[in-house]
């Protein structure tokens, strides 16, 4: 196990991923430490989502390793998941449940308790006042996205993996989300974010990786 402040918490070592026949990227290596924001760029089909899913542990890479504090995340499994919050293209909320119910069940599965009042407060903060008690299938796309993003405010995970978090959001929500991400990073967390719109993700500790340059 690597120790010390200089050691990167999440290390990607010669990672290669393929989809079917096509190799998306080969021998990708980088590392992220606490307090860093990684902005992942690349054109459509360059493997951004695949990389994020591999980082989350959903996808088995073709070769290479992803290590969290020196150990392969495949071996860590649930232990790694404890530190992780992943938001993919799908919101991961049930249309038949209300926003509050969705948030509370997600919290229990993530291993902590979220009481009713706190859930309401979080939804209020993300801008869903007055919609907390509706089945989420009646909400608009942007509102559903906000329900999913509310987990960022309630959760205490240190690694955030966000795949296109700004889609379907209005200007105010984009601003809010940027603030939330920067606050998380300033508190020592790490975030890996993909966007293809020009959202200003530039902060003091932002790094950018562009996929799909070398492989055509």
């Amino acid at each position, binding site marked *: 196990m690597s120790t010390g402040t200089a050691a990167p918490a999440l290390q990607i070592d010669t990672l290669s991923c393929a989809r079917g026949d096509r190799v998306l990227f080969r021998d990708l290596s980088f590392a992220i430490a606490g307090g860093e924001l990684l902005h992942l760029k690349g054109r459509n089909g360059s493997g951004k989502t695949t990389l994020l899913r591999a980082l989350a542990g*959903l996808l088995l890479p073709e070769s290479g390793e992803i290590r969290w504090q020196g150990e392969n995340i495949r071996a860590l499994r649930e232990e790694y998941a404890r530190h992780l919050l*992943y938001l993919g293209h*799908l919101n*991961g909320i*049930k*249309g038949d449940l209300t926003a509050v119910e969705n948030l509370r069940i*997600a919290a*229990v*599965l993530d291993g902590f308790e979220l009481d009713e009042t706190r859930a309401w407060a979080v939804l209020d903060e993300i801008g869903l006042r007055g919609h907390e008690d509706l*089945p989420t299938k009646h909400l608009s796309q942007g509102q559903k996205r906000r329900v999913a993003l509310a987990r960022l405010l309630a959760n205490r995970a240190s690694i955030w993996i966000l795949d296109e978090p700004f889609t379907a959001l209005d200007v105010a929500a984009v601003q809010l989300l940027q603030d939330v991400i920067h606050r998380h990073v300033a508190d020592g967390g790490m975030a890996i974010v993909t966007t293809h719109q020009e959202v200003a993700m530039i902060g003091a500790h932002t790094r950018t990786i562009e996929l799909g340059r070398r492989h055509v």
Partner: protein
Amino acid sequence: MFKPLFWVIRRDLTIAMRRRSDVFTTLIFFVIVVSLFPLGIGPEPNTLRQIAPGIVWVGALLASMLALEQIFSADHRDGTLEQMLLTPQPVSVLVVGKVLAHWLVSGVPLVVMAPILGLQYDLSVDVQLILVASLLLGTPALSLIGAIGAALTLGLRSGGVLLALLVLPLYIPVLIFGAGAVEATASGLGGQAHLSMLAAILVGSMVLAPLATAAALRVAED
């Protein structure tokens, strides 16, 4: 471990209650299938009494299998399934919760309905009791085993037919001991041994099936 389990069950039951019509589809299918046999075979009471255990059991088995197709697909579509794979909870525990909730919603109604259908076949009271007991032990095992198939075929074209092809051979022991228990009771041999075997299968599948299902779900979300 029990808290997330409890919450998953509660979540799925809440959703099921909010879309009640889905529950009845399975039940109606069961009733129709079981009612078709006398029409195909003829109304002779002795024949019907003899084949009743097999028919009710096959009907329950098919109904259970059809209902299982849906167990993970909605969660797969809206992304809650991938979130479940990313929680610190063991996936197999969450699978147990989902299967249990699914059984409460789609399996228990079959068990309750069975004696009413048994009346159509002129079964005696003690035979009816064994029928209910065998279904009570057997249908959860069917759900547990079927969940593996549902996870393996998740998101595939022709998932339903494929699910049947994968799962039905694995259902055979449950069918043999389930229908056998009822039949043995009807012929005066007593169904105890059969019921013990069913219980053993239930325990075995409770231990092993969630592990296989969890592994299959991870593959499906890859």
